[in-house]
């Protein structure tokens, strides 16, 4: 009874702190997003002062067509006007129409984003499942053979560019051994993708290996640091077996850098996905962003930037939130 009531009080009042934190961070997030879109706008203008018409319409387009295109899409107006038009459009949820894809931007992103998210999340989860135990194992066996073996492996993987890594995986597992297909599952929806899990093996492996190499290193380092803390000794003095000490005490305190990494990984994965998506013919956000940047499909490009900025903000908030919750000392920062 008392226990329950107390827990209720705790979560309720703690909830208020979290709400305040979220509120504040969301406001900041909106500012970040505005700044990011502004920077991207400015950069685009800097790189392509003439606008995207040439790229969109192709070499054969005449000057009249280009002028008409610029008029129709407002590229003849001052930059700040274009920016405010863009803002007022997204304010009402309108991302415009793609110049290249013959469809609305929201439609294109709406179709591609889930696909990328699925791939990214699966890779992330797989990576964490492998990397965290690996890092701990290495920390515990620090300086022993097992540690060296994994360290070397991680660094070979890490120092191999992902496009090459993916290629090697394809050659070995798809073309020599014929274990898994060389293509990611095709299909426009997540359900279609998930229906053929075999096809996800190589893309997920390519995306996950690099993350594993990174995260296991951080985990190893942080675990080593924490293993020398006094509280570990206290826990052992209680008769807690070492594996349990690690699981119950050390892991949580070692996750700080990993979580700081994770929040940042969410947006970065979009970049990393470009390689995976193009290699395995998996049209997702990464490629959408990349092709639109190359072809000057501004509405799509800006839409993607917006999505990535939102992902960054969310990732950053989540990381800070989880981190604060994990560490009672910083939990106070939430209020």
């Amino acid at each position, binding site marked *: 009874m008392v226990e329950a009531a107390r827990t209720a009080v705790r979560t309720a009042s703690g909830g208020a702190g979290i709400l305040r934190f979220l509120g504040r961070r969301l406001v900041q997030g909106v500012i970040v997003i505005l700044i990011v879109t502004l920077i991207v706008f400015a950069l685009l203008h800097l*790189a*392509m*002062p*003439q606008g*995207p018409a*040439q*790229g*969109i*319409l*192709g*070499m*054969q*387009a*005449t*000057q*009249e*067509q280009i002028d*008409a*295109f610029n008029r129709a899409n407002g590229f003849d107006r001052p930059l700040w006007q274009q920016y405010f038009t863009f803002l007022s459009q997204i304010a009402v949820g309108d991302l415009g129409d793609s*110049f*290249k*894809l*013959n*469809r609305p931007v929201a439609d294109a992103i709406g*179709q591609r984003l889930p696909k990328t998210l699925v791939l990214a999340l699966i890779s992330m989860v797989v990576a964490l499942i492998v990397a965290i135990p690996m890092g701990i194992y290495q920390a515990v066996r620090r300086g022993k053979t097992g540690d060296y073996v994994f360290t070397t492996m991680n660094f070979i993987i890490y120092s191999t560019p992902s*496009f090459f890594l993916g*290629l090697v995986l*394809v050659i070995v597992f*798809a*073309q020599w051994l014929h274990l898994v*297909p*060389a*293509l990611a599952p*095709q299909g*426009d929806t997540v359900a279609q993708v998930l229906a053929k899990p075999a096809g996800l093996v190589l893309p997920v492996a390519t995306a996950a290996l690099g993350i594993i190499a990174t995260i296991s290193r951080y985990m190893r380092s942080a675990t080593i640091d924490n293993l020398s803390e006094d509280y570990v000794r206290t826990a052992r003095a209680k008769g807690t077996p070492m594996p349990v000490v690690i699981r119950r005490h050390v892991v949580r305190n070692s996750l700080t850098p990993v979580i700081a990494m994770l929040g940042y990984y969410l947006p970065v994965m979009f970049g990393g996905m470009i390689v995976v*998506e*193009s*290699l*395995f*013919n*998996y*049209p997702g956000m990464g*490629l959408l962003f990349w*092709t639109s940047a*190359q*072809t*000057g499909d501004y509405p799509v490009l800006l839409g993607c930037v917006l999505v990535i900025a939102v992902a960054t903000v969310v990732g950053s908030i989540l990381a800070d939130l989880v981190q604060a919750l994990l560490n009672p000392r910083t939990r106070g920062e939430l209020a």
Partner: protein
Amino acid sequence: QGDEASSGKDSVSYALPAGTGPNWILPISSPDTMATHNSAIKATMWPRLFEYNGTSGTMEWDQKASAAKAYEFSDDHLSVTITLADLDWSDGEPVSSRDVEFWYNLVRFNAEKTGGYSAGLIPDNITNFEIVDEKTFTLTFSQVYNEEFLLANQLSLVYPMPQHAWDKTSADGEIGDFDRDEASAVQVFDYLFSEAKDMKTYATNELWQTVSGPYVVKSWSDSGQVELTANTKYTGEDTPSIPNVTFLPFTSADAEMNVVRSGEVDYGYITSAQLTSESQFTDLGYRVEPWAGWSITYMPYNFANPEMGPIFDQLYIRQALQHAVDQETISDVIWHGAATPDYGPVPQTQDSAYLSSEQKDNPYPFDLDAAAKLLADHGWTAGSGGTLECTNPGTGADQCGEGIEAGKKLEIVVTTQNGSQETDNMMSEIQSSLGKIGVAMTIDSKPLDSVLTEAQSCKTEGSTTCSWQLVFFGTAGSWYFPAYPTGERVFAKDTKWNAGQYDNPEAEELITQMTASTDSEIAQKYSALLAQDLPVMWMPNPVYQVSVIKDGLDVGHQDPGASFFPQRWSWSE
């Protein structure tokens, strides 16, 4: 995908170029949906009035694939009378003169919104459209045109469209003669465009089921995977042999090659680097066939560059530079054979009546000694560091030439498009050759868009910079021509893509005549002059793609115009 393709003989899968999926079905394109594969797919459903292609080996009229059967010019060359082939729409109605007029009216009243429209040319230059009977009509033009130009470059843009099915202003509107009135023609046009903007319905929308060509859409996915199936009501001569054709979109050439290697594509492509070991594909049951394009590749000199213009103005310098480009070896070694030398303004990979012997014989073969001599003879000597400097300024025959001061160094910057290893290597090679004759070349590589923008910078109003010297945007060929390779959009004095502002009255005259003169030799004269006068630095012309085709799949001759005719493909046992 593709699994069913390789198995049966009633279907075939074709890999589309990486990064683009087909996204337009209406025969009239919007300006941003002009990609080749869009029009190639459309043409299988709605044959053009005049289909010009190189499937026979030379660029010529392909009557079988055209909606026109015959044509006859009037004596004054101002009008042409065209007879339509015996094609029917899939709903049984015949393809009629009215259907051609329907296209004419829609484009005429909506020219600005139409892709490929060029002011003054078709349909602006048609002064009279006269329907003679159901299958015959006469077009009258505002001026005399070269016959080839008119048929190959103008009338080939016309598609007969099913007026009896499409001439309405809304989905449930009545069919009427709305196209004949400007206001309602705009409505019809907008209606058709809005329907064409919904890719999800391409396979289901009634509109697109009314076809006259050998195929009709069976499915069309968001990512651009398209399946065509034979049009059972097709009444023409170009009947398909393989009933089901699938077009596969790819995110990258690497992904495409992976699929090719796993044997899941019948007709795909590989990067030219793979030509170093063709056997990896022949072993898999493919044959490798480079697909040459109807194109030329070059680097414009910027004659308007305040610094370098005077240097580029000197023909001897252009000749020396051209002598230093080893096109044969570059094509063989760097492009692994997937490019062919190009010495002039007429596509040279294919033989054609337009090609002069002057161009064919390469007026400036690779010869570093000749190049060095040309420069030495005109007062250039090597300074410190080995770069040539003008030590004999003046306008005499053995002097540097007008506007070139003493001490001027032969240093050039090439702004080139990035992202291609072949191009990078080619530039390295040219840089290295030029270095050997004392010309210091700097490579500045940028994304294609930036290169194109930069190339226009001297011509854009209000632009303050004009600093580029040579630009290269030809990784996939610099310029693809319609069937009749006129230079009016590339080398004419004020045209947009005469980026370097080449200005030679003699050439200008020939260029004008190419569209207007009935002289059939005119193209050759033009070819010879520009091959010799070097308005640009001629460069090896890369193929359209290096195709890999499943053994047993006969695709005929690949069209240099980059179109494909799946109805001509067949499986042989």
